[in-house]
């Protein structure tokens, strides 16, 4: 089972844990990314996320299918990212995986967040205490020319 989404609503860890649950699954791992008050030495007040909704969901689904390919079709996989302006402490992303044994849950959950960060078309603009704001430099999607 795969669930992916992008949403302007507050993220819900319990929804992730409900999805990542089965009678044969003894383990679930859940990761939450939250907005930090500090990045590279600058005091952050909020972050605005921009993203390409359709391509983003397609990439999320692709990453989830890859996880099932590596750790088994039976694992339950959840990947949801938030859109819009988030204050410090708010959750920007939740990834979760359940599986029969714990090693696979940890490994697959980590895979989701690592792949999401370098492949999903999502952009982050940080707003600073001094009133400035900046689009954060990220990972190029462009195939080498």
């Amino acid at each position: 089972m795969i669930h992916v989404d992008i949403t302007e609503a507050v993220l819900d860890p319990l929804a992730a844990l409900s999805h990542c649950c089965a009678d044969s699954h003894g383990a679930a791992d859940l990761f939450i990314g939250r907005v930090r008050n500090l990045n590279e030495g600058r005091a952050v007040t909020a972050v605005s996320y921009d993203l390409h909704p359709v391509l983003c969901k397609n990439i999320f689904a692709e990453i989830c299918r890859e996880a099932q390919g590596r750790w088994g079709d039976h694992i339950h996989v959840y990947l949801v990212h938030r859109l819009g302006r988030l204050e410090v402490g708010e959750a920007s992303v939740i990834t979760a995986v359940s599986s029969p044994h714990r090693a696979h849950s940890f490994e697959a959950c980590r895979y989701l967040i690592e792949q999401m960060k370098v492949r999903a078309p999502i952009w982050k603009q940080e707003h600073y205490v001094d009133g400035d704001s900046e689009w954060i430099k990220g990972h190029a999607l462009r195939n080498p020319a």
Partner: protein
Amino acid sequence: MTRQIPIRLFGAFRQGRSDATLTVEIDTDARVSELRQAMSKALDSDSARALLKASAFATDTEILDDDQPVPEREISILPPVCGG
């Protein structure tokens, strides 16, 4: 024959713009590399042109290579990403 391509802008390409699209004109049979050149000419700052070099053109379903023909679908320009 030429055609108008509205390019959807994201992230830093939206900086200081009121619209989320930049429209450029290319030959009907142009490849992505020519779309890239046309967009570079249409951009109004060196920083935007530098960003373009690190950016990928994409449809809703795939990242495009520079030597592909420009597909008859909605085209986006994707700066380097940083979700999470």
